[in-house]
């Protein structure tokens, strides 16, 4: 079996996460919305425990965590859920960046269809947007600013601290898609200026199908979100539906481990990275994204002359990697992220994304090098 190097698509589940999820599937199967007997009470206690574990990672309050099916739903709830309040206040301008995930770009396009004006900030060759351009784009009627924490294709961390300073004197709601950075880069998300944070369970060794929108209170009030679905009062009325206790408990456990083992995990990723960088430098790879701002578990490179699909196919018995984000890799459309960074199509078509974690076993890099050298034109 090839060594899995696609941790930005999804991560292996931690054994203690799987064990806890199994417990709430098999034995403690109560419904947290039925706290009229011990089964329901225990499920409710597990959900509230997990809520606090998730909140702690971003220094939020437990009652600011709204469980969703994942980061995509959380992004949609944040962006579309604020539309009504924004319109009511006469603020119809939204700002985002060119390198966002489709789970942000498409809801933004929907806002545009609803009559909002959208400004899309460009990024530089390093993969980051310029906070000065954000400052210039802000208007009195800007309702919402949506910026990601870490890019899914390049692993490049965006300038959130500078963004917080720029937004400190402005009333716009600030949403951060943190699907790739939650639990992996702690300080930026703990900034109290961020109003809304979308997070995912399966990117931090938790189960798939669970995520959350962290909605920070301002002056004691949640952002004026409207639900996208109706049919129950769960999650403060913002996300109706029976809560999936096994997934939520597993997500909580994964969040706990991400916080507790943060430094050890980063160190393991740094050690692995040093080897990956050496191998691809020897192969003459071109880096996509600035090393100084890239998280230690991701590398995006282009090998000129070797199309991505040929490399991935040739390597499939040795390492499992990807060329772009998991959500679009099946469509074969050119990466909008690399295009936004000014990377020419001929290099973008040769891009590879390698992403690993603390659980990644050793790779036979000599074999990888040998295979890739053979593909050279």
């Amino acid at each position, binding site marked *: 079996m090839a060594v899995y190097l696609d941790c930005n698509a999804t991560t292996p589940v931690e054994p203690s996460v799987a064990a*806890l999820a199994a*417990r709430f599937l098999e034995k403690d199967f109560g419904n947290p919305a039925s706290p009229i007997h*011990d089964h329901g*009470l*225990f499920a409710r*206690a*597990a959900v509230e*425990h997990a809520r*606090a*574990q998730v909140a702690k990672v971003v220094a939020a309050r437990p*009652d600011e965590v709204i469980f969703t099916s994942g980061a995509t739903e959380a992004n949609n709830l944040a962006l579309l859920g604020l539309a009504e309040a924004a319109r009511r206040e006469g603020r119809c301008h939204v700002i985002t960046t060119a390198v966002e995930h489709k789970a942000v770009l498409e809801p933004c396009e929907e806002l545009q269809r609803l009559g909002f004006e959208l400004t899309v900030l460009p990024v530089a060759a390093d993969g980051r947007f310029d906070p000065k351009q954000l400052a210039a784009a802000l208007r009195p009627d800007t309702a919402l600013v949506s910026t990601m924490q870490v890019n899914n294709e390049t692993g490049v961390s965006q300038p959130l601290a500078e963004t917080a300073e720029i937004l400190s004197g402005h009333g716009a709601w600030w949403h951060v898609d943190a699907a790739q950075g939650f639990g992996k880069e702690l300080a930026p998300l703990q900034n109290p200026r961020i109003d809304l944070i979308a997070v995912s369970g399966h990117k931090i060794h938790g189960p798939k199908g669970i995520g959350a929108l962290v909605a920070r209170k301002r002056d004691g009030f949640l952002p004026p979100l409207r639900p996208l679905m109706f049919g129950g009062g769960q999650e403060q009325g913002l996300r109706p539906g029976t809560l999936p206790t096994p997934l939520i408990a597993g997500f909580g456990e994964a969040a*706990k481990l991400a916080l507790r083992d943060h430094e050890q995990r980063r160190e393991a990723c740094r050690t692995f990275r040093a080897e990956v960088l050496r191998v691809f430098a020897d192969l003459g790879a071109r880096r996509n994204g600035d090393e100084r701002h890239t998280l230690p578990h991701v590398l995006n490179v282009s090998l000129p002359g070797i199309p991505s699909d040929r490399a991935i196919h040739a390597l499939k018995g040795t390492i499992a990697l990807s060329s772009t984000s998991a959500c679009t890799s099946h469509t074969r459309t050119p990466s909008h992220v690399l295009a936004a960074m000014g990377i020419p199509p001929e290099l973008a078509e040769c891009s590879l994304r390698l992403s690993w974690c603390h659980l990644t076993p050793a790779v036979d890099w000599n074999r990888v090098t040998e295979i890739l050298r053979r593909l050279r034109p």
Partner: protein
Amino acid sequence: MNALFQDLETATLEQFNERELPQWLADPLLEVARNPEKYGDREYLVEMLLAQVREYDVYADTGCCKWAYDHEDLKRTLGWLKEGE
């Protein structure tokens, strides 16, 4: 593992000595905290208990919404923990 039980002891004593955790709850909590060999196989519940002790507030259930854990929560979690005995 032992660190978890030590944390539970510290949190319980702090809540008992400096805040309003009653003795009838502090006693069974300390019994758990001081017997890691007995409760070590129920780590998840001990973690839950620790979180609840840290966020304990006698007035948790007053006002418009519940914002902390009260004696009923602690008593219930202790009950689940002891079920495994």
